[in-house]
């Protein structure tokens, strides 16, 4: 109780201090001489955010970039970490897996989400059907990893199966299978988990976008004799292009950063590691912060173009409207 009370008091004091500082800035800005008021206002209101950005984002980013060129003892070692990344078989497998993930997950999740959204559109019980697919979104990646690990669980032939899939396989007269141990298909079995989570996200956004397509356009297409596929292809898809880009890029970024699923299900063993997982392993477990930072840098470079593309498409959309 004393502990909780202490923490609570700290929060109250911190909030009060924050409010006081903001109040002080506002007061000073207000008191500024008329001639310089505009400049003071801009500086006064931008400075706190800019300083926090510098301390919390820019400085760590620069530090990580520098760290990427040092060895385990903190001595500069040139591009050794990057050489390691592109020559060691383990590190290469990590990069290869990340590519497989980023290609498959956005396509599958968006594809399934779109198909589902179209099929249940205006169907009876649409809300319930939506909720069913959306529910996995509410589960954390770690939770999903644990659930699916149990689904994939294995016991030898002749021993009672504990995993759902192997139970069904045995019931159908097949041999149980070690889903997570055989590369490269084990990566696919991990990808299924991510698709399972992300399909709900894609479905909800796309369903909302489909409802935003003007009814007149759909009516006109129907009157012109377009069949459902042509309606979908020529009216619905162009109508939701913006939403599709957002969904695809958001899922791609989430997939590039995937960490929890791999970590809980295989810990990167059996050739399933991905960049984010390897980054953590190298930096915090192997005591090679330089290698971890180098991987983080690569991850940043991979995410960057997608974020830029996303921002550009959004801006274009706004201009059209």
């Amino acid at each position, binding site marked *: 109780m004393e502990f909780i009370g202490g923490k609570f008091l700290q929060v109250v004091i911190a909030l009060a201090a924050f409010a006081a500082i903001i109040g002080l800035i506002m007061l000073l800005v207000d008191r500024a001489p008329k001639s310089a008021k505009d400049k003071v206002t801009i500086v006064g209101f931008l400075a706190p955010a800019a300083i926090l950005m510098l301390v919390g984002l820019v400085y760590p980013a620069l530090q990580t970039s520098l760290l990427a060129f040092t060895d385990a003892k903190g001595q500069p070692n040139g591009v050794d970490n990057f050489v390691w990344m592109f020559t060691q078989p383990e590190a290469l497998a990590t990069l290869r897996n990340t590519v497989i993930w980023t290609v498959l997950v956005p396509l599958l999740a968006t594809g399934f989400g779109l198909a589902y959204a179209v099929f249940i559109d205006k169907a009876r019980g649409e809300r319930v059907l939506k909720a069913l697919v959306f529910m996995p979104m509410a589960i954390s990646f770690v939770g999903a990893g644990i659930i699916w690990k149990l689904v994939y669980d294995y016991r030898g032939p002749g021993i009672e199966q504990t995993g759902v899939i192997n139970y069904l396989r045995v019931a159908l007269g097949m041999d149980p299978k070690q889903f997570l141990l055989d590369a490269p298909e084990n990566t696919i079995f991990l990808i299924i988990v991510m698709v399972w989570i992300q399909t709900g996200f894609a479905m909800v956004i796309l369903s909302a976008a489909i409802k935003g397509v003007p009814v007149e356009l759909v009516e006109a297409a129907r009157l012109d004799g377009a069949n459902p596929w042509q309606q979908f292809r020529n009216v619905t898809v162009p109508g939701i292009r913006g939403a599709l880009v957002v969904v695809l890029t958001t899922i791609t970024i989430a997939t590039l950063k995937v960490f929890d699923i791999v970590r809980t299900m295989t810990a990167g063993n059996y050739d399933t590691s991905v960049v984010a997982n390897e980054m953590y392993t190298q930096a915090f477990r192997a*005591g090679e912060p330089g290698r971890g930072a180098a991987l983080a840098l690569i991850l940043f470079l991979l995410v960057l173009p997608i974020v830029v593309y996303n921002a550009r498409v959004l801006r274009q959309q706004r201009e059209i409207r």
Partner: protein
Amino acid sequence: MKNRKYLLPVAATGALALSLTACGPSGGGGGQATGVDCAAYESYGKLDGKTVSVYASIVDTEATSLETTFAPFEECTGATIKYEGSKEFETQIGVRAKAGNAPDIAIFPQPGLLTDQATAGNLKPAPKAVSDLVDKNWSADWKKYGTVDGTFYAAPMLANVKGYIWYAPKTFKDNGWEVPKTWDEMMTLTKKIADDGAMKPWCAGFEAGEATGWPGTDWVEDVVLRAQGPEVYDQWVSHQIPFNDPKIVDAMNKTGEILLNPKYVNGGFGDVRSILTTGYAQAGQPVLDGQCAMHHQASFQAANWPEGTVVAPEGDVWAFMAPPIDASKGKAINGGGEMVGAYKDTPEVQAVLAYMASADFANTRVKLGGAVSANKGLDPANAQSELDKQSIALLQDPDTVFRFDGSDLMPGAVGSNSFWKGIVAWVNGTPAKQVADSVENSWPKS
């Protein structure tokens, strides 16, 4: 709502009142340990009002036991020991030291971590009093684990014994099996059990989340120590011989005679590879169900059995030490332990260090159960279980050669990464030589 504008201040006052009551005096605190003879604690001096912070990876009931062990010291000297346990200790201690937020005292579960902190210049060398106590109470091997580049930094605290082989005495008795005294006898017994066909001789499980594979490193270390002797073991751990030296690959293959033989493993779980997907804490259960005969795991396995399991020579389960392979290499055992290092050298910190290195500390802690120490001043009568008694006897036996868990001594890049991963790849089908080559490649160049 006419009077809505009153709502906010009222709510704020309410919240404030709540927060104020929440931080009132908590009362009590630090139960009085009655009947403590303070005479033994006089040498530590009067430390009234002084606070020493201790940080370690020990949590839950073990943390409570540790705090109880500090109680008489606190009562007699007047000092306060602020203990903090965290499962993130291994990563956090480095972060905290770097951030200038180091604890006064840290209890390191891995000598490798201690070495990192000492070489980074964060730790203070141990005071003379502690050094003298360690010379008196521990073997030279143990002192070495707290020594970095010739400077002695940390006294050992508690110990655990690895390499136990767990079995159900009743199963052995019913089948007329004898506890093997040599490795060859153990292999003969293994073959006999497999040929009988009633159960698999062994069950094993290496799954441990991100640390998957570590129980396998224990297996290999046991075999290296018993087959090649302590000298080769030391050379291997300190990288004076490469990881892929033929002696080590031989040891791996010798371990593989059991672990990679589908006839010998994996009772109750499936094929050889099911070792990788079986959690290390559950892996031993089939011993109780009669689905396998033996299970290799450290002394802490005693806590992994289901509640109510009697751990005793005539009980539900009991353990024998993995037998020697080459009698000429002596009676060697493998184990782990904690090292107590300090980030400050104030008098109160030095007093706490001296207390933790003393026989009083070892006796008080062991009396609470679930722990042993290699401290020679420890009275075996204080052991709370048959297993603790056996472990203490092994640790105090002058014939016993003790070696610290090898993966804990190797650099982090190997000991807590590539060695684990190598074991996983090995059980998953990669040949021992190839695994050893890849671990050797990952050894940090310096």
